[in-house]
Each structure stands twice: as C-alpha cells, then as structure tokens.
C-alpha cells in the first residue's frame, strides 16, 4: 500500500494501520469494478481481446461483467452510439446505482469519430457524464488498460473530472541507441 492516506504503524505485536474512511472506500472500489459492457460497434472486437487471457482485465479487478446495469459500477461504452440508441444508453446509465463510472472506449464513443453526420451522437458525453476517454480507432488494449488504471487512480483520489488517456509513444531507434550507450558508458560500434 503505497497510498499516502494509509499508514501502517508497526511496533506492537500485531501492528495496525490508520486511514480515512473515504480513502478506504476508494481503495476497495477501485479493485472491484463490476462492469456493464455497452458494446455497439467494431471496438467490441478490441474489447473482447482486452477481456481475453492475453491482456487479462482480471489483473485489475475489473473482469466481472454484469448484464444488468443495476449491479454494475463501471459502464463501458464501446463503439458508435446513434441518435436512436442514445435514449437506451441514458436509461442504462440512469439505472446504475451510485457510485458509477463511465469509460468511453474509442473515438466514436468519445467524440463521434469520423461519423460526423446526422445519425451519430457526437460523443456520449453529450448524453451522460464520462470519467475517462480512451481515444483510438480502435484503441489498443494497452491504451484501454491505461484508461482503466487512470480510472482507478481517479477513484482512489475521489477525482471526478473527465480525463483523456495520453497516447503512448514507442521509443524511436535513436533513443534506444543512446540508452545502450549510456548504460555501457561507451559508444556501441556499428558492427556490434
């Protein structure tokens, strides 16, 4: 527990910890997110990958799907939401019990994506509040995991302002070379 709001005090035979109630609740909530997947379009394939053993959402305590919104804490909106579907999304959100969190999965859910037209909701935040946006068309599972971790941080700190997952950058080859150089303290020869 690296969380500063929880202090472990040692010295007696059993030891004990002090914390605040809201911090304890946040800590408990962030590792037991029951999710309701609202999957409407192609991003769903990436969502399935995320739930599969390879990327393994279960590591973060968010693997249990609940197919009734009344038992869910986290609403995944995965894919394009059309104007016709928006009332359904709103109803699902309204049925969830507090505290509830929403993650917009993919560009379509975040801002409508390239469907800038008469039929598509230009971002689900026009209809329901969103906690975390994960851009990408579709986002890589790693990006979504970043989003999930971001959400868990926000839950732990009680922060409800919307956040966007930052893009990851792959290290460019130049940096790799300089990393190796500094590690060995000597330039790597071309042949090596």
């Amino acid at each position, binding site marked *: 527990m690296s969380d500063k709001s929880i202090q472990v005090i040692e010295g007696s035979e059993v030891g004990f910890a002090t914390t605040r109630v809201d911090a304890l609740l946040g800590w408990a909530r962030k590792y037991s997110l029951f999710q309701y997947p609202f999957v409407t379009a192609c991003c769903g394939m990436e969502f399935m990958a995320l739930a599969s053993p390879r990327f393994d959402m279960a590591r973060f305590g968010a693997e249990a799907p609940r197919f009734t919104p009344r038992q869910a804490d986290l609403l995944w909106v995965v894919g394009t939401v059309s*104007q*016709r579907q*928006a*009332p359904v999304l*709103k109803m699902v959100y309204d049925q969830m019990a507090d505290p509830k969190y929403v993650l917009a999965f993919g560009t379509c859910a*975040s*801002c*409508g994506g*390239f469907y*800038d*037209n*008469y*039929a*598509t*909701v*230009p*971002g689900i*935040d*026009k*209809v*329901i*509040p*969103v906690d975390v*946006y994960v*851009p990408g068309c579709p986002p890589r599972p790693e990006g979504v995991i970043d989003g999930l971790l971001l959400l868990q941080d926000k839950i732990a700190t009680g922060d409800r302002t*919307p956040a*966007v997952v930052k893009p990851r950058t792959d290290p460019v080859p130049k940096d790799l070379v300089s990393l190796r150089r500094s590690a060995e303290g000597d330039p790597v020869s071309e042949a090596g």
Partner: protein
Amino acid sequence: MSKVVLKRLEKRFGEAILSTHDQFGDETAVVTPEVWHEVALFLRDDSRCQMDHFIDLTAVDYLGRRTPRFEVVLHMRSMQKLHRIRVKTPVAMGPDGENPKVDSLVDVWKGANWFEREAWDMFGIEFKGHPDLRRLLMYEEFEGHPLRKDYDANKTQPLVEYREGYEKQAPFGLPEGMPFGRQVHDRWKVHVAGRQTDGKTNILGFEED
C-alpha cells in the same frame, strides 16, 4: 446483353421512354414518371422480359445540376431470361416545395416495400399507393430528409437532450476533433451561397468554364 428488353420497352411505350443507353453491359432506360408503374408491370409480365427479381430501388438528388432535381432508380433482373436492367425516372419537387411523388411499386414486387420506405426516409420521395410509408432508418421525430443535398451536413436532431455546455465538438478541442470534415462542410456552405449570388461557381465550388 439485355438490349432486347430496351427494344421492347421502346416499341411498347414509344415517346414515354426519354432515353436509353448501355454501358459496360448495363442497360438503362429513362422513363417519364407517368408510366413508371406501367413500365414495371410490363417488365414483370411480358413474356420476353419476365423481370421477376426485384434487386434495388433508390433515389439520387441532383440539386443544382439537373432539373427535375430527383431521380428514382430501379434495378431488376430476370431469373428465367438472365436479363438485368436499370430503369430511372426523373421526379420534381412540387411548385411550393412539396415532396416529389411517384407511383409505388409494392403491388408489382413486394420486395420494393422497405426500399421505398428508405427512399422516403432519406430523400423524402412520396410513393403513391404504398401500404405503409413510414421512416425506415431514422426515428419518427426526425425532421427533414438527411440525404437531400440541402440538408445541413452538421445538423443533428437528438432524441435525448444534450447536457448543458456540450456543443457538437470533440472533448479534446477542435484541432484534435474532426478537422477534415468540418473544413469541407464550411467550404460547402460558402460555395453554395456563392453560387446563389454570383452564379459563376457550380455546386462543388469550382469556377465554371
């Protein structure tokens, strides 16, 4: 391949066939809207045509390029004779901006039902005699017909009220949202306005030679 069908059409309807052409083996006849239903019946029942397979029915909006403005397009095929033909008819808006009207073909081919509903939904073409002309894809509350060229490309008609303070734009700020789409839409508006005033630019915004 299906020239015989065109010949029979011309022989039977004469003046009512406005033009015919074929390209890459696709035969097309343009007919007047008055004979639209008759042509369909003839094509289905004539022993040399036997168009028993309805394929597609849709419409095109040629706003600013042609008068009359709309064209209804029908594709069909004959299972027996292996003919394939396309029939088009130009339809105009009414004098006071009423919806264009053309006969329904549901009594000729049942399959035309949903296609005509779609054409009504998207282009606002009224099919006279259609048993149940409701919107197919959009919702009842939707106003206007989205595939008409004069439908504002940026306009949405939400069923649920948008939350306050959220415009139709990306949460990440405009530059990261839809730069390409938005630019084209704005340019479109400017040029349509320009065309109406100076009459020099065409609908796509290019100077006309």
